[in-house]
Structure formats: structure tokens, C-alpha cells
């Protein structure tokens, strides 16, 4: 390690290279240290290994869902590779249809229609905040 590297502060990856390279941010670090690297016990019963391992179920540790969510580690919920964001679109469409039906009853003027401007993901996040219990994640789901 280089002598002048700050200790315990912001860590940059070792080596030098093109200026285009980005520093390691906390998200990138967490993604690796929490979810990658050698797993000693994983979800296996520690006793089977006959090792007095204190920390077990490392995968599940991040499942403290509230922490994960606060960090944004809830990609398993809406990984666009998996969902293509379709679910959000469907929700949005349904909501809009209801809204339009209301409006065409003549109850409101046009201005009110312009209110919903956020994209589907934002709407869903809002929904999640309002109903945290419904979003509780089955930890098994995020195992690859």
C-alpha cells in the first residue's frame, strides 16, 4: 500500500490508470464486501463444519431489509433485467385509467391531469414507503 493512503477514510482503488477511471464509492464497496468474496459458512449450519464460527448466514445479514433498503440494496425487487419495468408500467396504466375515468366524469379541470409526472419506478417507491410490510423480501429470492 502506498504510504500516503488515508486510513479509514475514503479509499481509492490501488493502481493508476486512465483519467476516466472513477473512484470506488461506498455503493461499489458494499456491493463487493457484502455480497462477494469467499464465503466461509454462508447459510450452511456452522456445526457441520465443526468450526466455532461466530457469524453465520452472511447473505441473510443484509436482509435486515430496512438497512438494505436504506442503502438501496433492494435491486432484487425491481431488477430491470428481470422485470423490464413492466410491472411499473402496468400499475401506472391502471392508475391512469382510473384517473381518466374520474376526470371524464367532468369532476375536475384539465390542470389536475398534469400532476402525475414521475416515472413508474418513483411511483412504486412511493407505494413501498407507504406499505413497507407488503414489500418484505423473502431472503431466498435473492440467492442466485
Amino acid at each position, binding site marked *: 500500500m502506498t504510504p500516503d493512503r488515508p486510513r*479509514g477514510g475514503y479509499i481509492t482503488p*490501488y493502481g493508476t490508470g486512465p483519467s476516466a477511471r472513477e473512484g470506488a464509492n461506498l455503493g461499489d464497496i458494499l456491493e463487493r464486501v457484502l455480497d*462477494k468474496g469467499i464465503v466461509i459458512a454462508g447459510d450452511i449450519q456452522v456445526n457441520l463444519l465443526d468450526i466455532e464460527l*461466530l457469524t453465520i448466514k452472511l447473505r441473510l445479514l443484509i436482509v435486515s431489509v430496512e438497512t438494505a433498503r436504506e442503502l438501496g440494496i433492494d435491486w432484487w425487487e425491481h431488477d430491470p433485467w428481470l422485470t423490464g419495468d413492466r410491472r411499473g408500467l402496468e400499475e401506472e396504466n391502471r392508475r391512469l385509467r382510473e384517473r381518466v375515468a374520474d376526470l371524464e366524469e367532468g369532476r375536475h379541470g384539465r390542470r389536475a391531469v*398534469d400532476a402525475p409526472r414521475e416515472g413508474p419506478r418513483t411511483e412504486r417507491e412511493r407505494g413501498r414507503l407507504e406499505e413497507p410490510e407488503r414489500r418484505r423480501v423473502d431472503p431466498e429470492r435473492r440467492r442466485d
Partner: protein
Amino acid sequence: MTDTGTYLYAIARDTGTSPPPGLTGLLGAPVRTIAEAGLVAYVGTVPLAQFGEAALKRNLEDLTWLEATARAHHQVVEAVAEAGPVAPVRLVTVYRGDEQIHRLLRDRAHEFTEVLARVAGRREWGVKVFAAPRPAASDDAGGGEPPESAAERPGTAYLKRRRTNLRTREEAWHRAASRAERIDSVLTGIAVARRRHRAQDPQLSGRDDWMVLNGAYLVEDERGEEFAAAVAALRDPELDVQLTGPWAPYSFTISESGAGGTA
């Protein structure tokens, strides 16, 4: 009995060298080495008041604690990586004492040696590709819109525009994703191995735009510059291609047969 545990950061080959002088890890504690079976474990002593199982459950909920721990862990792993091939160990792996680490190295020597052989002379690079969602331009353009058919009620017209926008967004997403696939395939051609991570949430990435690729590539040291240059060449006005690294090979410690994604 003791109220401390042995925290395991990383495993490397035993080359007879001592840890980098002055290297400290969690809580500023010095990093020690434990040698066994041709391997060396980089460890530190931690108080069980913080790193015992019950304490960990609590502490991992504490973002400040988690960040400090993650960074300290990462710092040790990177320092070890500078000296030679390393197999990073997952965060907060704590044993009751050094003897358990000796046993671990003995019991799993073969596996660890294999991992170290796979990552020797290679480094991990992270590549994230972002695409800006197409702006919902006509969403609330009001008077700026072309005149609609007088027969159409305003709500219906709005819904139609909204649908078009959503469809356009979806098409933009698929276009960006398919270009990300091509980027991935170019980079995989340079790398010796590749793992695809899940797309990060905007809160984690700190960006609102779409992450259409989050890949880790294991690249020979001597091809690092070539890899970085390839990444730079893949940037274009619509896609932001972000390079991080080189990293210790966090994403390549799991054997091909193990869980953890595609090779």
C-alpha cells in the same frame, strides 16, 4: 475465555513476507498474519462486544458502523492485493480465535489455492453502463401540443400521450439494454472471466438514470490498459460507461460450480 475474536479479511499465498508494515484494519487494530498449509490469512483482533453474533446483528443495522467496517475491510483487502494474489473474504467473518483459522486453512487449502491460482496476475474491473431515460417530453406540454381532435376528451388525449411516452421509454430501455449487451460482449472478449452483478438501485448508484449493465471483469494485469481503453472507446453520447478498479478480485472467488452467477 476471551472477549475478543479473530476477524478474517483475506487469504493469500504464504510467500514468507510479513503484512505491510503499519497496516491497520477495523478499529485501527493492526493486521496480523496466520500461516498454514502454504497459505496465509490476514486477520485482526476484534472485540466481541462489537463483533459477536448478537452485536453484529445490531451493528449491521447501523449505517455509520457498516460504512466504517466496510471501508476498513476493503482497505486491508486492497493492501494485501497490492502484494500479490488475494482471495477476499466476505465482510464480518469472525472466529473465536486463531486456532480456528489454522483449521480453516488446513481444511480448505485446496479450494483456496485454486481460487488464488485463478486470480493470480489478474485484477477485477467494474463497468457500469448508464442510459438516460428518454424525457417524457410531451407529458405536460399543455398548449405546446399539436391540436387534438376536437372529438377527443382531454383525459383520453392525456392517456394516449402518456401511453406513447411510456412505450417510448420502454423502447429506449430495450435499445439501451441491447447496446449494453454488445459492450459486455466486447469487454468479455478482453477479460478472462466475467460476472454480471445486478443493476444497482438509484440510491446506491447515486444516479437517476438507468443502469443497464453492472459487470465485473477479471483481466490480466498486462491487459488492464487495453481494457480501460476499450471502455473509453465504448462511451457515446447516449450511454455513459463508467469504469472502476482495478479491484481485488471480490467477484471471482466463487468457483465455477458454486453459487453466484454466470462465469
